[in-house]
Structure formats: C-alpha cells, structure tokens
C-alpha cells in the first residue's frame, strides 16, 4: 500500500492538518483520544469530507480539492472495522457477511466467503441472528464482513477497545491471520501501545490533529518506555506448556520460563513489562525469582530518565529498564554478559 495524505480541515473547536506518506502493509495510527485518529479515518474512508488537500491511495486519487475530485465512500474500496461490530440487526450472520461481497465487482472478488468462514471459524454461525452471538463472535463477523468486501485497504478503528482483555486476545490472532491470509494492507488505529506492538510495524503518531512522528512500533515503544506507566512491553511467545510444582514451564528460545499464569494450552503469549526484570552483574547464588536468565547485552538506549537494556537471552530478545545510576553501577556495556531475574508471577497472559 502506498498512501499519500495531505489534508486540512477545520472543525471549529478542533482542526486537522496532516501531511504524510506511507508505504507498508501493517501501519498503525497511534495517539490519545482527541488526537484526530477518528477524523483521519473518516477523511480517508470518504465518510467525512476534508476541507482542502488530497488523498492518494496506490496512485488513485480519492480526494483532491484543487481538481474537484471526491470519490464516494462506496467506490473507494476501503473496508472498515469499527470500535463496535455495528452488524446490521435485520440481517443474519450470512446476510451481514455477504453484504459487501454482493456489491463487489466480479473481477474484484479475490477473497471468497468459504475462505473467510474458514479463517474466522464462522461456518457454524451462518444462519444465526446476530443477537445470538457473543461479543467476540460479533466482532469476528464484522471483520469477515469488511474483508469480504474485498477492500484494497482495511481500516480498523480501535476494533479491540470495546472488548474485554480476554476476548481481545482471542480476536487478535484472527485479525492477524485474516490480514496475512488475504494480504490486505491495513491501518490499525489505537491508543494502546500493546495493541500497536501486536498489530503494526510502522506507526504514525498523532497529537492534536497533527502528525508528530512517523516511526516504527519498536522505536515508539522504546521512546515511550521511560515516561510510560508500564514501561516497555515484552511480548513473550512460548511453547510446550508443562506443569511444574504448581507453576507452568514453557520453552522460550533455548531456555525454560516458569510462569504462574500459564495454562494447559500448548502455546502461550504473555506480556512482560521492562520494569519487572531485575538485572544482575554476576550470577546471584540464590534468589526468590523463579526465572534467572543468562543474557548478552545487544543494545543500550535512553528513554526519559531511564536506560533501556536490550538483551539476547538464548536466542530470544528481552528489554529491561534501569535507572541511570543502576546502569553505571552494573557497568552495562554492549556485548557484555548479564543476568535477568523475573518472578514467575509477573507475566500477564494475553493468549
């Protein structure tokens, strides 16, 4: 996807003035509420009209105030997944799923209903009324409906914010799978750094209607580490769940992690804050933390008043943070050896 946006719009109490160009498939739009995320979505999708400027998607002019071009929303082929499912209440699951598909030109029907049903596991729900679906199922139907309209760009406007954490991380794999399977480039809108990390590679940071930064999600997470309440979030993907003395043992790279919030499922995804990791210069003989990893420092970076330490732990990457004084006491240097201690109870299970 190649998206060029240069737009201005005055809403009276609030104005939008954005100029950016993006190439990529997994793009995040990040910012607090009131930063202009939803307005930007409305302008790109054609649901709101910019005052001035131009929007060009893959060389196709969607809007240009000078040339007097304003392509109607229904012709832009930009799919939307909203904050809530917004399924059509008078249609059943099948009717909702096929609404966009039926209106898609034959030559543009690249994605078929069968494949979407399969990826989103919706086949058994087809004939159901939408009121008889759970929140997660409804959002899956909404995703399927948008994907089946065979869009050239999918905009997901905080699609997870209406769901509680448990359902959120059930939906994320579906989102990932669907976009990967059908190669749909997307804009993922969110105010959550964690969601950004899971869903996007590049990110556009908005504030008060302006683009303040265009960066990678990794850099964004590092920059925000020092000022953020939760620090840097390490996403830990583990396999091979095994019960061990009341905890769960998983394989993570070449080592084993003990996690108290594990479960019987073979695979697991956990988040671990950079603040929950304690670093040791030498091997501590005995500690209460159940995980002690021998690591190599691969990078050191500053973020606010803190120092981020990127480490390679048996083939897996981990970021810990320490205050400046601690960093000098530990004499952390790139390439140096270090020990990371993590309590089994500080991992938060995502999936």
């Amino acid at each position: 996807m190649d998206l060029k946006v240069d737009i201005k719009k005055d809403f009276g109490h609030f104005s939008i003035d954005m100029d950016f160009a993006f190439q990529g498939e997994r793009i995040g739009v990040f910012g607090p509420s009131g930063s202009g995320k939803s307005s930007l979505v409305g302008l790109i999708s054609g649901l709101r009209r910019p005052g001035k400027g131009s929007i060009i998607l893959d060389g196709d002019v969607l809007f240009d105030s000078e040339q007097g071009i304003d392509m109607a929303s229904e012709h832009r082929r930009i799919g939307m997944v909203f904050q809530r499912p917004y399924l059509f209440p008078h249609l059943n699951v099948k009717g909702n799923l096929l609404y966009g598909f039926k209106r898609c030109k034959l030559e543009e029907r690249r994605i078929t209903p069968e494949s979407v049903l399969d990826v989103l596991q919706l086949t058994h729900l087809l004939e159901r009324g939408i009121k008889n679906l759970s929140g997660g199922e409804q959002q899956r139907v909404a995703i399927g409906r948008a994907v089946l309209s065979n869009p050239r760009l999918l905009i997901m406007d905080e699609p997870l914010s209406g769901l509680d954490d448990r359902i959120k991380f059930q939906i994320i794999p579906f989102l990932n799978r669907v976009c990967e399977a059908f190669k749909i480039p997307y804009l993922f809108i969110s105010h959550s750094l964690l969601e950004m990390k899971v869903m996007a590679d590049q990110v556009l940071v908005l504030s008060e209607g302006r683009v303040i930064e265009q960066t990678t999600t990794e850099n964004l997470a590092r920059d925000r580490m020092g000022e953020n309440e939760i620090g840097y979030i390490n996403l830990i993907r583990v396999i091979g769940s095994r019960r061990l003395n009341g905890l769960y043992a998983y394989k993570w790279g070449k080592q084993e992690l003990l996690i108290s919030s594990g479960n019987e499922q073979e695979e697991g995804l956990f988040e671990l804050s950079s603040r929950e990791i304690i670093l040791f210069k030498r091997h501590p003989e005995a500690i209460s933390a159940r995980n002690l990893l021998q690591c190599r420092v691969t990078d050191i970076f500053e973020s606010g008043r803190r120092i981020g330490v990127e480490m390679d732990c048996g083939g897996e990457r981990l970021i810990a943070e320490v205050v400046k004084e601690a960093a000098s006491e530990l004499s952390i240097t790139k390439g140096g050896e270090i020990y990371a201690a993590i309590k089994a109870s500080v991992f938060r299970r995502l999936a």
Partner: protein
Amino acid sequence: MLDFTSNDYSAILLSLKVAVTATLISLPFGFATAYLMTFKRFRARILLDIIVNLPLTLPPVVIGYLLLILLGRQGPVGKLLFPMGIQIIFTWKAAVIATAVVGFPLMVRSMRTGMESIDKTLIDASRTLGAGRIDTIITIIAPLSIRGIIAGSLLMFARGLGEFGATVIVAGNIPGVTQTIPLAIYEYTGSPRGDTMALALCIVSIVISVAVLIFHEWLSGRMSRAD
C-alpha cells in the same frame, strides 16, 4: 339498528377508500421527507419542518379552504388541470388530497422517530461496504425504520377515517360521491330522527379504529418476537 341505506354503505366504503389511497400516496413522499429531515443538513430544513408540521396546528377548515383556492378552477393548480379535463374539487380525489395533507405530519413524525433510532454508523458501514445512497436507503434505512413506517401509515389511515374539516370544504358533502363517515354522521345529526343512524355510523367508526389498533399491536408483537 344496522339498517344502513346504500348511501351509508357507500360512505363507509368511501371512507376506507379515501383513507387507504391517501396513505398509499403519501408513503413515498412521507418517507422521502422523513429521510431528508433525519439525515440531511440543509438550510431550508427548518422551513421544511414548519411546512410539514403546519397541518398539525392549523384548523383543518383552513387547510380545506387553502386547498380549495389552490385546486379550484381559478386556482394556480386547478387552472393547469382544468384544460386537461381533470377536475379535483368536489370529487373523492379532493377528499384524498385533503386527507393526505392533514395526515402527512403524523406519518412523517412516526417515520422520523423510526429513522432517528438507527445508529448512523450502520449507514457508514453500508457505504464502506460498497452500497450507494439509494442502495443504503433500500437495504438498511427502510428495513430498520419499518416499525416507524407502519406506525405512521396506520396513524395516518386512522386519522384519515376521521377527516372532516378540510374534506367538507374541498370535496363537499355529496352523498354517494364525497360523503365519508364523518360527513354522513354530521348530516344525520342535523336531520330529525337521524340520531340512531348517526350512532350506528359511530359504532362502525369505533369498530374500524379498534381493528386498526389491534392490527398495530399484533404487528408490533410479531416484529418484537422476530427480533
């Protein structure tokens, strides 16, 4: 008591015919007006709002008189129609127009209530799924405001059965031609020994009205169950 004359029967039938025709003719206009007033922002909106709702507050006699001026042989509309051999005033068509005008705001109000309850994001969703404006109106807005459409139609039909003031002026009170139930009752009350017949026609009115209400309740019940 049910010793109706042929004029009474034709009054009952005419009442139903006028009310049904007025309702059916008003449906597309009512829907379009309700749509404009719910979903569109334009300058003349307030003006449209006033014009549509005016018959609700104006005395029906005033409406009848204005229609008479408009549709009469010398009136701006009547002048155009007369050479074509179309006469409206003092025919049942005039009764239909009078009924439509008087009942129109009731129909529009119900439809608006139905449309206002539709979440605008559903409309946004249908647009991004490739449905144009007309497509969205037919496949999303109409089905989702169906209760308002039905309620508005029934309300207008019921109101149409009782239309008197505007009808009597623009259509007259011609037995067998433009005399509807209310006009027939009016005539009976003015004639000696007409009380019984007036009362009988009142009962017919009540029966039809109750039937409309029961039908409405039944339909709403069915629709709630279908949800």
